[in-house]
């Protein structure tokens, strides 16, 4: 099962998890990104590159499936207007061995952060600003190139 989805509707982690569980293998790893509730953000807007985003995510998932021999992999990313506590992204992988599931899940979220065309704009009260990319994200993505 490969599932790549960019959508405005809220993400349902239980449904996403059930789809991975149906693969019948022993280990499932997931990462869920949540709009932080602790730094004064009132709303978060996610812009993306229609078509280009799905192509980039499918490429990443295909690489992970081939590299770790996954039975299933999913990336579901929300776009549009969100509030603190909302889920932004669900990444899930299923494999016979837990190391494959855990590593590939970390790989997908690290690579998504630098290689998938999404842009965040945070609003705090009346002030809106585009979120700056972080150096640490490039470092995290780069570590997957050597091994």
């Amino acid at each position: 099962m490969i599932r790549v989805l960019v959508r405005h509707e809220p993400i349902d982690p239980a449904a996403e998890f059930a789809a991975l569980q149906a693969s019948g293998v022993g280990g499932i790893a997931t990462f869920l990104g949540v709009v932080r509730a602790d730094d004064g953000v009132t709303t978060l807007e996610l812009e993306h590159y229609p078509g280009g985003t799905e192509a980039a995510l499918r490429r990443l998932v295909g690489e992970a499936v081939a590299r770790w021999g996954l039975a299933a992999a999913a990336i579901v990313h929300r776009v549009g207007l969100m509030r603190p506590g909302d889920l932004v992204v669900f990444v899930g992988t299923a494999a016979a061995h837990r190391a494959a599931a855990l590593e590939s899940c970390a790989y997908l979220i690290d690579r998504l952060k630098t290689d998938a065309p999404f842009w965040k704009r945070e609003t705090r009260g009346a002030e809106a600003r585009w979120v700056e990319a972080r150096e640490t994200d490039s470092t995290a993505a780069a570590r997957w190139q050597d091994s």
Partner: protein
Amino acid sequence: MPVDLLYFSWVREAIGMGGETLELPGDLVTVSDLIDWLAMRSEGHARAFAERARLRAAVDQVFVGLDAPLGRPHEVAIFPPVTGG
């Protein structure tokens, strides 16, 4: 053949539109050459493309460096470093 230019995030805001379809001159070799040429189209374009280090690009939906060959693309997107996830 006309090429679809796509702009995102503050690049889109500075230019004042999400995209435009243009016939490109034949002498643009790299993505950077294209950006130089686009920067002359308006004050908004010039402002959006002023800091080259803050720009990223995708040619036909594949991320490339600004020094990559432009080729004969259908679609070129120009945008800031991404911040999803």
